[in-house]
């Protein structure tokens, strides 16, 4: 297709989508909008057309969401626009930035104020994306397989949950819960405690070949779960399987008055959700910056060298143990910090959130998006979180409806929402066999795979 035809087609579809999304908002218009995003990505129209089409579509999705806030496909349309902004080459950086900020700070909040589920979804995606970026340092950059990543998440969450609730009064004198503003201090504390835990676990495992780390971290995940479940006696630290609630949240009076001064009046619940949404955005920004800078630092290069060939890296004088430990502890610290946010945002912490499944979900995000690739990992986090919290549940409801209508005669054990393991397992296996570099490959990884193909021919 010539570029001119592409221009016309893309702009036409984008314009039509905008009109439909505005006038007849709904799933069908949303679907057309998604096609518009896909066409923009694959038809490669002129630069201005790419940017223009994405802007039109973002506007369309926003308008539609402000009218029909219950249709999730519209929200995924916004996510798709963000992904397209990151991945489509050739759009000037300032346009990307401007459009991205507009979607994140205007469109998503508009959707979220009408339907807090989207804010919740945004927060979940953000928390998981930040964690996946942390795991990306361990798995993607340094090539160390960590199968107990949720353990560090749990340690972080419990660090704040115990002291931010009356729980700590069981073994310490003093007044608990601590005031909500200690939250920020505990984020720093969690970073330190999880990094130290990471060092302690990594020290024996990382001296050996990589496979041992996988099995040790698998064991660690199990141990942390056992501890969280059973440390309610002799001294009640974790309150066992019931979990800890309520966990204090930071004081957001200042945020509330700030929002009212710009004319946004929200109820207390939405206010908190919006606050956490913004907090998570800020943290992702920080995490991405840290990721990029680490990747380009002396350590980042050493990690990649180790990932590519341990023996060669050792021969070049890279200290194995220290470098690996640093990667492992950095990843652990990311996870710990997100645990604190998780605890405060949910106001509830229980061992159930930190199973092997959680660790594998985060690994799946990194693998799906592309090991070592920052936009890829964020995309992976968005996709799997959406599958987990929304898509599988909707599919279950759909089947249930069919079952009740008598169209489908299925045993009630067959419920997609309970088969996340199957879905994530299939994703892991298929990605490894057919696209190990991930959906949005890291550049270096991409080159390697192309080289390997040439070498085979």
């Amino acid at each position, binding site marked *: 297709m010539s570029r001119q035809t592409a221009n016309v087609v893309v702009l036409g579809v984008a314009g039509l989508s905008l009109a439909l999304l505005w006038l007849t908002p709904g799933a069908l218009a949303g679907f057309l909008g998604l096609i518009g995003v896909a066409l923009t990505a694959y038809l490669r129209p002129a630069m201005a057309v790419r940017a223009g089409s994405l802007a039109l579509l973002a506007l369309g999705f926003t308008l539609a969401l402000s009218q029909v806030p219950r249709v999730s496909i519209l929200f995924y349309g916004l996510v798709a626009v963000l992904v397209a902004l990151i991945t489509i080459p050739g759009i000037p950086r300032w346009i990307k930035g401007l459009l991205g900020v507009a979607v994140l700070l205007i469109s998503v909040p508009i959707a979220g104020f009408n339907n807090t589920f989207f804010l919740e979804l945004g927060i979940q995606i953000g928390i998981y994306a930040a964690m996946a970026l942390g795991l990306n340092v361990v798995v993607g950059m340094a090539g160390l397989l960590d199968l107990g990543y949720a353990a560090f998440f749990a340690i972080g969450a419990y660090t704040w949950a115990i002291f931010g609730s009356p729980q700590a009064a069981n073994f310490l004198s003093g007044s608990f819960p601590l005031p909500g503003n200690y939250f920020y201090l505990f984020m720093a504390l969690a970073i330190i405690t999880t990094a130290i835990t990471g060092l302690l676990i990594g020290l024996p495992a990382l*001296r050996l070949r990589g496979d041992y780390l996988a099995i040790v971290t*698998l*064991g660690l995940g*199990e141990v942390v779960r056992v501890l969280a479940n059973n440390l309610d006696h002799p001294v009640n630290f974790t309150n066992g399987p019931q979990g800890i609630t309520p966990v204090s949240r930071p004081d957001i009076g200042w945020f509330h008055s700030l929002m009212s001064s710009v004319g946004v009046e929200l109820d207390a619940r939405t206010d908190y959700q919006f606050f956490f949404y913004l907090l998570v955005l800020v943290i992702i920004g920080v995490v991405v910056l840290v990721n990029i800078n680490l990747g380009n630092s002396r350590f980042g290069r050493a990690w990649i060298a180790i*990932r590519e060939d341990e023996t060669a890296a050792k021969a070049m004088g890279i200290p194995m143990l220290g470098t690996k430990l640093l990667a492992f502890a950095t990843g652990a610290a990311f996870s710990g910090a997100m645990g604190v946010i998780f605890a405060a945002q949910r106001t509830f912490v229980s061992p159930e959130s930190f199973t092997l499944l959680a660790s594998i979900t985060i690994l799946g995000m990194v693998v799906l998006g592309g090991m070592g690739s920052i936009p890829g990992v964020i995309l992976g986090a968005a996709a799997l979180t959406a599958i987990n919290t929304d898509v599988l549940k909707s599919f279950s409801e759909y089947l249930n409806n069919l079952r009740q209508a008598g169209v489908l005669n299925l045993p009630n*054990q067959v419920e997609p929402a309970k088969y996340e393991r199957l879905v994530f*397992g299939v994703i*892991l296996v298929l990605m490894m066999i057919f696209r190990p570099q991930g959906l949005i490959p890291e550049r270096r990884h991409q080159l390697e795979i192309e080289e390997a193909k040439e070498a085979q021919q």
Partner: protein
Amino acid sequence: MLEGLLALLPQVIFDGLLLGFVYAMIALGYTMVYGVLELINFAHSEIFMIGAVVGVEVFRYLAPVIPNGVVVLVLALILGAIISGVMAMIVERLAYRPLRARGTTNRLVPLITAIGVSFVLQDLVRLVEGIWHNEFKLQMRLIPPLDGNFTFLTVFIQYKALILILVSLLMLVGLNYLVNRTKLGTAIRAVAQDMNTARLMGINPDVIISRTFLIGGALGGVAGVLFAVQYSTIDPYVGFLPGLKAFTAAVLGGIGNITGAMVGGLVLGQMETLAGTYLPTLTGGNFGTEYKDVIAFLILILLLLFRPQGLLGQVVKEKV
């Protein structure tokens, strides 16, 4: 109090022995695959679980028809071995061989595939059982003479426990014979040592690897059936913890070493049962039996610190 503890000891040691043999049987499968491919086959714990589920199903359908428990058990063992072995082969063919064919050098790729396969198998079994019986938590129903027992000195012994020990000893001897004395065993060792040289000697590594999975899987299946007979309650996620511990046992004995796997399993089983029984008494009920899993994990950590090659293993230089 000490006397009371000592009086329990023979029983505890016997129970530990049973658990140890279960770990040992699973560890054999891990160690065989690791010996050949240097891959931790996480899916092996699910192959074991499939054996357990087959065991329950065979008893569900055949026990009402065939009155003799031993006959049913033999059928269950055979069927469990076949189904688990073939499943392991299928997994190798579908998931691991494409990776080898592409020739990736990245060690993460097969490991991630293995953990993915493990998850897929768990939920597939859950799905099958869900459709079949509308229930995925299964209960073993035993028939005589399997449910019989006797007391030897102070030790309470069930017949099924004796069968478990007998079968696992047979498996160890048989496997040692197979690997060290037969042509197939020689080929397996050759592939484990150097795949390319083995190919030059006229061995087809793909066939040998496939057979290794078949044998390891069949052993896992037998272990699963015996596990179901011994411990009765089975669900699709039952393989995870025994699998994790069996791998610990394999490392404990020296991974890649068949006798080592057996020894490691027995040692781990003993430690775990001892800890599980005595921990509550020794700590005045403050730390219960739940911590036995933590003990197994601590053993692994200490082992990796002080003797990573395992009890019977040798230090191996990294292949370059």
